[in-house]
């Protein structure tokens, strides 16, 4: 199979919104997707991911906004005319049709000649490695195999856009890793523009070119995996991205984009991600990987350093995940290259650049405020 013949330049979501009887499930989603991109929609359960996907697929009408492909509206087209392939969370295979016929369905609907259908179905089935099972009914397949049928069925029509709704959520851990690689491989070899919904940040980070983080229907941040991983836009995204240490502290002083924050018996040099002034209550986010146990005699100049007592040590292959308690009884998650003993008092070091300061409120920061911060920084 080659690059989709129906490829487009760009797909644009403009203020897309959907409400269910007064409850906003999705608000003002703005996103421009380039052809061939792999976008992950990420967020906790109930944040509106499926709603967004169903709106795109045309299974739910929009309450606000427009969807444009190369400046032509597609949100007015019925689902069957959009030419988007969708992989459903529960697969939704046709139970009365064999694997082959499931895969052939979309091509038959497009009135392709028989010879072409059978060739493309064969290719698609080979692509997901289901040759041996081509004649079986979906009920006779394992979960992972059904999932691959669902993928084959969606991509065989070479759609303009592939939509996947948590396709791996029903699989066991090992199969999930395998299928993740498989999906990435398919995307790279076919170049199909893909929107992928998941609530697993690791999955999203490993698969996507760009991520969209949602919370209660509102977009929190859009960016590359590296951007989201290193610079979450607010504490909620940080929390979602694995910044397991969230401390509620107070700003002591501010200079440019760096600040001194205090509280809980700690005094840290930190970096302002969102604007704050001296005296503000803020939330400080720190990744366990950035907060490390210092080796004996290791220098701490230019870095935050404070003591804490080891409470739990967990082996994680080559390094250790350690739970510590500060002098005021606060529990923190830290990393260590060697195994400390529980009960021992250790020195923790932390780069001020990786000590991120956020506002406690999640309402969006206005553009002027953000600009001001950048000018100062």
């Amino acid at each position, binding site marked *: 199979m080659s690059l989709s013949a129906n490829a487009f330049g760009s797909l644009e979501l403009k203020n897309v919104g959907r409400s269910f009887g007064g409850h906003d499930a999705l608000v003002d989603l703005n996103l421009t997707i380039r052809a061939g991109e792999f976008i992950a929609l990420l967020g906790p359960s109930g944040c509106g991911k499926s709603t967004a996907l169903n709106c795109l697929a045309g299974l739910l009408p929009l309450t606000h906004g427009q969807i444009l492909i190369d400046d032509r509206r597609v949100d007015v087209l019925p*689902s*069957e005319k959009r030419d988007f392939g969708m992989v459903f969370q*529960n697969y*939704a295979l046709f139970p009365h049709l*064999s694997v*082959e016929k499931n895969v052939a369905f979309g091509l038959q609907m*497009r009135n392709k000649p028989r010879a072409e259908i059978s060739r493309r179905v064969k290719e698609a089935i080979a692509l997901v490695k289901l040759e041996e099972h081509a004649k079986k009914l979906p009920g006779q397949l394992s979960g992972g195999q059904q999932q691959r049928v669902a993928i084959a069925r969606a991509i065989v029509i070479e759609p303009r856009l592939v939509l996947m709704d948590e396709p791996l959520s029903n699989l066991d851990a090992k199969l999930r890793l395998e299928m993740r690689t498989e999906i990435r491989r398919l995307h790279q070899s076919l170049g199909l523009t893909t929107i992928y919904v998941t609530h697993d940040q690791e999955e999203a980070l490993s698969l996507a070119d760009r991520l969209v983080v949602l919370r209660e229907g509102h977009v929190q941040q859009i960016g590359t995996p590296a951007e989201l991983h290193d610079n979450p836009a607010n504490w909620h995204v940080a929390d979602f991205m694995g910044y397991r240490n969230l401390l509620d502290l107070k700003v002591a002083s501010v200079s440019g984009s760096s600040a001194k924050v205090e509280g809980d018996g700690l005094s840290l040099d930190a970096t302002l991600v969102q604007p704050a002034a001296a005296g503000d209550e803020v939330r400080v986010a720190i990744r366990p990987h950035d907060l490390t146990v210092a080796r004996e005699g290791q220098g701490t100049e230019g870095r935050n350093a404070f003591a804490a007592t080891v409470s739990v040590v967990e082996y994680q292959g080559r390094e250790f995940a350690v739970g510590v308690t500060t002098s005021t009884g606060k529990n923190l998650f830290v990393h260590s290259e060697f195994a400390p003993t529980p009960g021992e008092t250790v020195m923790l070091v932390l780069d001020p650049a990786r000590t991120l300061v956020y506002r406690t409120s999640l309402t969006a920061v206005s553009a002027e405020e953000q600009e001001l911060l950048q000018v100062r920084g």
Partner: protein
Amino acid sequence: MSATNTDPRPKASASRRHRLAERGIDTQLLMLIPALLFGLLLFVYPFTYGIGLTFQPLPRTQEQWGGGVFANYVAFFKDPFLFDSVWITMRLALPVALFNVLVSVPIAFKLRHRFRGKRLLSTLLVLPITLGTVLTAQGLLIFGGRQGWVNRFLMEAGIIDQPFPIVNNYLGVMLSLIISGFPFAFLLISSYLSGIDPAIEAAAKTLGANWKQRFRRIILPLLAPGLATTFILTFVLAFSVFPSARLVGDALGETRVMALMAYRAFGEQQDYAMASTIAIMMGVVELVVIAVVLLWRSFLYKGTTGGKG
């Protein structure tokens, strides 16, 4: 394992019940035996007795139609007054069953989605179940009789000058059968339809199937077993029509259905043997129709899952 044991495999450790179940024997079904015996006594005995009766024709039947012990059957097939009742009943039951099933499908489809007033509408559709046949018949008589509301309205509006015959004929019985049979068909088809995951249809939609294609290629094959069952049930209900054929029909003419004939033989002519024969023939006709429907169903099922592509 003891040395004398020649079987190299260790003895299966699964319980006896498990091992039997592997071979398709469900020991719990044994508990049904008392009920089965009871059923045998209450049903099978009178049934066989009835069959026995059919082979003991009255002397007058034997004289008129000949055929020895088969005289009742000979009479049934040769006497047009009797035999025509098969067609008369079919002419009622088949269209009614077909109508009930075909009309239930789109309505059940519409009622799948949530909308305001759905509960009210489905209650109205199912309500006739609670009316007995007699009540329905009475309603029809009041509504559609020569002096009924419909005819009075139409005549006074000057649309017709003769009352339009709605009851005491084929149409009356048909209406009554639809009123009492439709709720069953609707309920059954709704529940079969709700068993089909809406995501399956959504998947067909995203693959480019328009509603006709979705219906023909996806919904219909998945619904076929349900349609067959529903058809059979409403057909059997309609086929054994008795009260409405008498009350709103034309009991000696157009709606001279088999049940009426059997009742006549039994009640008016004191011919138990003939009555039994007609009853048995009713069963035979129903079985033939059921067999045809099931055959159609298995054909359709095979047709869509088709082994070799």
